[in-house]
């Protein structure tokens, strides 16, 4: 009985935290809410038969999946969207029903509880800390891993008699480019030294003549010989 009330209190706390709307808090709150739902489902399905903590944990965990999957299908079948509000309503409904059933059940004798030595908690905390360090190491390794640098060159379709040349720098450092745009082979616009900061995008607008067949944009690194490293081309779709 106490366990049921505690679980309901946990559920209420999760709802309050979710209502705050803070992203840092909403994630853990959602997980707590789902865990509370699982715990209540487990206590309703197996009130007395399986007092073993780990068996009840298995049942509760499985029922979380079952409730969410079948609940999601039910929402979809009812024509409701699977969004936050409807999920919240479904979980609150499940918890309310389970809570009522659990509270009305005749409470059996309490399961024999063995005290867990303090040393176990210390060791468990140490293991959890190590796991967190491992996760941190892995994330740090992924963030600092060497990446193959590249630059994106794009050329838009004409809009309002002009095309847009785009450059995005993924070279890992600020870069200076030479950009040349040719219409039907003739140089129409050029930017001999465009500096694009790392991770940033640069665009250039080129007005087209009234008649044209094709537009080509070429990019080269200004520190290299003027051999284009990237090239894009579009053809006039209104040509007969």
């Amino acid at each position: 009985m106490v366990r049921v009330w505690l679980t309901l209190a946990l559920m209420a706390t999760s709802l309050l935290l979710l209502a705050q709307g803070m992203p840092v808090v909403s994630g853990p709150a959602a997980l707590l809410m789902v865990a509370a739902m699982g715990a209540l489902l487990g206590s309703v399905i197996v009130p007395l038969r399986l007092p073993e903590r780990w068996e009840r944990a298995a049942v509760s965990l499985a029922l979380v999946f079952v409730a969410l999957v079948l609940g999601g299908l039910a929402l979809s079948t009812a024509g409701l969207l699977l969004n936050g509000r409807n999920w919240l309503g479904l979980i609150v409904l499940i918890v309310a029903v389970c809570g009522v059933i659990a509270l009305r059940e005749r409470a059996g004798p309490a399961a024999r509880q063995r005290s867990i030595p303090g040393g176990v908690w210390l060791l468990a905390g140490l293991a959890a800390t190590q796991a967190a360090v491992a996760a941190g190491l892995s994330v740090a390794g992924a963030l600092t891993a060497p990446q193959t640098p590249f630059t994106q060159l794009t050329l838009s379709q004409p809009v309002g008699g002009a095309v847009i040349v785009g450059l995005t720098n993924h070279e890992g450092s600020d870069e200076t480019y030479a950009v040349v745009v040719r219409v039907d082979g003739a140089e129409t616009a050029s930017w001999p030294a465009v500096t694009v900061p790392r991770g940033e995008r640069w665009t250039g607008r080129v007005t087209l003549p009234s008649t044209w067949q094709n537009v080509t944009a070429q990019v080269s690194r200004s520190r290299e010989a003027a051999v284009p490293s990237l090239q894009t081309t579009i053809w006039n779709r209104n040509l007969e």
Partner: protein
Amino acid sequence: MSPPGASVLKDAPPVMDEPIRSVTPAASGIVPDFRASVPPLARPSGSELGRPATPALGLGVASVAVITGAALCLVAAAYSLARWGSPFAMPLYWLGIAEIVAPIVVYLASSSPRRRDRLMAVALLYLALFAVKALQNPLELTYFDELLHWRTALDIIESGRLFEENSLLPASPLFPGLEIVTSALVNLGEIPLHLAGLIVVGAARVLFALSLFLLFELASRSARVAGVAVALYAGNPNFVYFGSQFAYESLALPLAAFALYLTARTAQERFANPRLWIALIGTLACVTVTHHVTSYVLLLFLIFWSTLALVIPGAPRQRLVLVPTVLLAGFVVFWAAMVATTTPEYVAAPVTRGVQDLARLVGGEAPPRELFRSASGESAPLFDQALGYLSVLLVVLGIPVGAWTLWRRESPDALRLALTAPALAYPVTLVLRFVSVGSELASRTVAFLYVGIAFVLAVGLVWGPWRRWARGGGKAVTAGWVVAIIAGGIVVGWPNWGRLPGPYLVSADTRSIEAEGRAAAEWTRETLGPHNRLAADRINRLLQTAYGDQRIVHGLADGVELAPVFQSEEFGAREIELLRRGRVRYLLVDRRLSTALPVLGMYFDPTEPGAFGYVQPISRTALDKLDGLFGIDKIYDSGNIAIYDLQLVTGG
């Protein structure tokens, strides 16, 4: 001198750490408290037998957990070193794996741990091995199937609706169990999708460990056998990497294991607890809508089990297995008929190809696939090969011993027999490894067979003949056997190049997912908008689906094979006809395909011309042929990747 009482207990039946409940049927509908009705088994304490007293609750497993935590740090360090190409990465990786597996297995193999501690230990083992996969790429999903399911999950989150089309994996939206759970977490708590996926699969892993333990314990009536069997299941070649990915089988298989446990439980208790039946029905329905093959295999197993229960005399309770069997059959037929109508064809296709390849092998029309050699010609290290062969040998040798031990010790029981049969079928799957498509089929099949294999092996190891002549009751033999099988499973199930992160490789799934391809996909979504018909190679079509939200044109969804368009050095009538038939608007070309042979043997599909037999890469000329062609816009160039707009040519 033997400790007092030892000779009396020498041939006694196995003693569980804590009493297994013998549940009596309810009388007059009142649910009894069986804890009051079942006395604990009389059991001498360790000190009476001259053995040390059982350690305090949880202390042993907590100590092992500390070692596991340190091991995960080693694995994470190995991954970081691998990204920089360090030669120390792989040895460090294996050291970490050994440090994760060995202490837990030794702990489970010994006789002293309590039942509850064994449960915690198996959960710890499965979580730790899941972490091995999760730590590999902590910031994003990089496995082929993961990105396909990512798309389905994103569609549900963005639209709020189920069953949106996924052109690369049409079956995925039709079995949305995994994505429903994941999207619920994302919508409720604004948890990033990648993190939500990790939480869901990690929780499923814990469920898997607990469910298998409870099932094996019911079948063997021994917590020690159950613990060792759960550890042995981790030797399934798909366990550490494939089975830990964000894909529908990763949730369905644990649920199926739980369903098996509930089936055994409800068959034992009959209708003493009607609510357990509700949980069982719900679980069966959940498995049905989560993964097609898992539900089919579960159904086959239940049919086999219930048949045995009907045939074997003296097992009337287990005949109740017929009830969930019929229910699951109904669910499967309903779902296939009303929702997932294309599934039988989709599931049959690789099976058909595998059988055809096998027939060609048997008929001498095709040479056998070379084991431990990738399609690009690279051989696995000798250490890997030795470990792989050793693990298979240990499994093959252990199965008959376990089956014989089970037959001798225990009376015929439908569940035990049903678990033994898949183990006996294992050697047949080894033949499939000699054909290319069949090798993947064998891997996928073994994941299910291993439930029985693990059980039979555990029986043989814990109760086998060596417990009489090996010091320590065979604990060392058991632990060594299990560790070798788990390590060998990793080697057999996942290639050397896929176990550690590293630089780009051509057509190598997780080793081909990198920033340039992802950036191209994000650009197409931002600039071209979603759902454009786009054709690309195997890796880029995956990225364009997951990150670009493009409608990929390919054989499975559109019935047109576009590989020849990329492979041909000419762009003529044939190529244009293929593109028009596919109504392709955009073509993405990755020039890196010309730099190396495909690691997986194909650049596009298993059915492309030259698949699994390339001797040289696609020519650069073929990949550059569209440059400068009249009427073909080249709208994107990032050096390796070019995107062409074919609207003027195909009208797409």
